[in-house]
Every structure is written in structure tokens, then in C-alpha cells.
């Protein structure tokens, strides 16, 4: 069985202080968990996302692509899958999003992957 773990949390209002010992301690926990799940052979892939205020939502209705600022607003919509893509810019990402089969009924949220520098 394959599963995706979706990590939801309230977003901090300000960026963390990347130099602080608190931030380092927090990251240590993430590294430890990632190592553990990798070594157990249980991890297929994973990424951190940029905050939701960088999200763009795409819907196609009556053949027209509707692009909007912001994350999912409709509470009834639940994540049903995901594609990880590598393209030149947001317009290309929108073009792919507009071709996802269920974009005509649901919404595709585009979130940039966080650049962690590695």
C-alpha cells in the first residue's frame, strides 16, 4: 500500500529566525524523522512547500481556465492526488494544471516547492 502524508499546520505569521537555536532544534527533529523513515525504506519522496500565500488555484469551467490567487477555499474539496512537476514558470505550471482530468470539476492548487538549497 502506498500513502501520502499531508502535513497541515497553522502557518507562522513571520518567517522564523533561521539563525536561532530554536530553529536549529526544530530542524533537527525533521532531519531525524526523515532519516528514520528513509532508513526504514518507507519513504518514496517528500518536499516542503512554500507558504499558502504563494498558492495559485486553477479551475477549468466551460473550457475556460480560471486562475486565482490563494489556496483551496472550498472546504468540501479534499486532496485526491498530486503531481510533482519541473517547468520554467507559473504559466507552464498553469498550462499543465489545466490539463489535469478532474480540473473541470475540482481545483488544482499549485504550490511552489521550497528551495532548501540542496
Amino acid at each position, binding site marked *: 500500500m502506498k500513502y501520502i502524508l499531508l502535513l497541515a499546520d497553522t502557518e507562522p505569521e513571520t518567517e522564523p529566525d533561521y539563525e536561532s537555536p530554536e530553529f536549529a532544534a526544530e530542524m533537527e527533529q525533521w532531519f531525524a524523522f526523515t532519516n528514520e523513515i528513509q532508513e526504514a525504506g518507507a519513504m518514496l519522496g517528500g518536499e516542503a512547500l512554500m507558504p499558502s*500565500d504563494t*498558492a*495559485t488555484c486553477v479551475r477549468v469551467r466551460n473550457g475556460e481556465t480560471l486562475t486565482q*490567487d490563494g489556496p483551496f477555499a472550498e472546504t468540501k474539496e479534499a486532496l485526491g492526488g498530486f503531481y510533482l512537476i519541473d517547468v520554467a*514558470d*507559473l*504559466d507552464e505550471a498553469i498550462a499543465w494544471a489545466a490539463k489535469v482530468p478532474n480540473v473541470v470539476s475540482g481545483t488544482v492548487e499549485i504550490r*511552489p516547492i521550497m528551495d532548501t538549497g540542496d
Partner: protein
Amino acid sequence: MAEPPEAGEATPSTERRPRGVRTVVSPVEHAFRTEWSPIVATLRRELGDLDLAEDVASEAFAEASRRWGLDGLPDRPGAWLLTTARRKALDRLRRDQRFADRLPALAEDLDRQPEPAALVDDQLALIFGCCHPALDDAARVALTLRSVAGLSTRQIARAFVVGEETMAKRLVRAKKKIRAAGIPFTIPPPDQLEARVDAVCGVVYAVFTEGHASSDGAALVRGSLCDEAIFLAETLCKLLPDHDEVRALAALCLLTDARRATRVDADGLPVLLADQDRSRWDRDRITRGLAHLVAARALDPAAGPFRLQAMVAACHAAAHRYVDTDWRTIVHVYDAMLAQGGGAVVALNRAVAVGERDGPEVGLAELDRLDAEGGLADYHYLPAARAELLSRLGRVDEALAAYDSALALVGNDTERRWLASRRERLTPSPG
């Protein structure tokens, strides 16, 4: 066919100031109006960063205001500004390793000037980026006024009656999203172009309506938003000469704003079209607006939403007296709007126009029909329109009752005062 005047060419030094305020414009101010957008557009492409482009452009203009007074005006102010801004950018980039790969290209020839075609592409890319649908509406408007029209954060904040800090945050957030989400500054591919041009027109129209709708104490400040919208619309006409709705948008803004000086009385209350002093309408704006409308029709015989609105404005602008208004055409235009999916408010405007064309009784019958259909139950303009027609027919008691219904529904204080003043005309003055 008459060609409309090109934006920025006729009288660039006074074009974007409030009419009647023809103060002497300094060379820097003049250069600012004509050069800001092309310089920011060129720098944004060269530097790959909108924020940095605006910063160094601002610094170059600040240096111009210091230097030109002492050294005299350079032969080509635009070229001087671009080169100066590039020098400022180089200074900054040398201090920031992240931009090391951009340095050689930038340093190569500080004096090179963009080709006219490339400049058009850069300016379009800037506009399409600022009006990208992945940004929220308020962010698009703020970015466009800052980056394309060159307003300061403070000016934009004042125009929208929000704090400067709030507006600054909005701009920072928008630029952060541009960077983080990878919003491109490019001319969209042909299959997306029409929708993206519509998005740009929507932003310009939002700027215009924000300026036009204001009739409060900030009217003078906000009226300048109409000037900015007209500047943006006519800039778009030059950059996108084949798009009829861009021309129609310019026509709509000009023809509507031509009435600015007469729309509101000394007390800040709206003045009915019938009562406006038409000799004070701006003939230059009307001429330019009509020329854009003619150009739009030449591009495409089928009128889109902006063209239809502009046609109504043109019918009013072309009438030298209220009684000369071509209500037949106006009713036809409203019919076309309804055919394009216009809602209850369009139907209401149509009913009022029918009343002007066929007489108050026919107009009242139309309004009653709309009333019966519902959909306008909470809209004060419906009883207000009934009241106007009833008072023309001398049915004073019914008119007073209709004004009372309108007053019970109205939410805006200015409109309440206006309705009360209309109602007062019908009541015998005490003593």
C-alpha cells in the same frame, strides 16, 4: 477615418494633471511621466527582479532632480536615466553574490538603448506580469499603479484611502508571490492572450471605477486615479493596437471622465445628466474617446462589453443638450448588453432609457415589469427611478412614497442626501 491621438504625445507635460491646473512641469517631472514605465520595464528584464528595477529607477530619478537643475537637461533624458539606473544596479549587484551571473551582461554596455520593438515587448511583459491572474485583484491594481504608472506607495495608499503601511505590505506580499510562485513577465502565448488582455483591461477599469465612484472628501485625490486609468488605457492602445476592447476601454474612460467637472455639485451631491452644464464637459477627452471608439469598430464590428458601455457614454457626450440624447441607440445598446448576459441593473438602465425614448408612462410600465420579476428588491435605484418618472407626471404623492422606499433602502450617505434633496423639491416649502 480619423486616427486617435497617441497617448503621451499631444501634451505630455500637462496630460496627467487635473484639468485647469496647468502649472509649469519640471523636466524631471515630465521625464518621469514619459520614461518611468519603459525604464522599469527594461530594467526588470535586465535585472530579472521587479523590486530592484523600481528601486534603481527611483534612485536615478532622484539623481536627475539633483543634477539636471545644476548641469542642465541632458540631450536624451530617457537614455541618461536608464544609464544612471544601470550604474546604480551595478553598484548593488557587486555587493550581492547572488547576482554574480548577471553582472557581465549588465556591465558590458551601460549606454545601450533598447530597440523600439524590444521596448514594446518589455513594457507588455511588465504589464502582463503585474496583472497576472495568480495575483489577487487588489495586488494587481496596486502593482500596476506602482510599476507601470509610477505612483509612489504613499500616493496609491491615499488614493485607496488605506494606510501607507497597509499598501506597502500589499505590494511586498505581491512581489513575494511573484518571486516565490515563479510568475513570469512575458507576453502570453496566443492561446492565452485574449484572456490575459481581458485581465489587464479589468485592472485598468478597476483603477478607473475606483477614481470615478468617489464623490467624498477625497474626490480630488481619487479623481487622479481616472487620469492614471486613462494614461494606462492609452498606453495599452499603443502597445496592443489590434485589440478592439483595449480601444473601447480607453474610449469608455475618456468619454465618462469628460463629465468629471459637472458630475458632482458644490455640496458633493451627484448632478443628474439632464442638469449638468455641458459646456464644461472636456471636449478634448470627448474627441479622443470618440476616435478610440471609431478605431475599435474598425478592428471588429462586433462590440464587446467595454465597447457597449462606451457607446452609451458616447451617446451622452455627443448630445449638446439633454433633449438631443439619442435614446433609441441607447436602448439598442442596453438590448445588446442584455443579450450578452447583462443583469438586472442593465435591465433597469434600459427601462429608464425606454422612459426617455417613449415617455414616462412607458418607462413606468417597464419599471413595474422589472419590479414584478424581482431581483432588484433591495436596490434603491429602482424606486428612485420610479420617483423621478412619477414626479415628471405630476403624481406627487406616489413620487414621495417612491422616494421614501428608496431612502429606506439606500446605504450610502451621499446618495441618501441626494435622494432627500430630490424628494424635497416636491414638498411645498414651509412659509
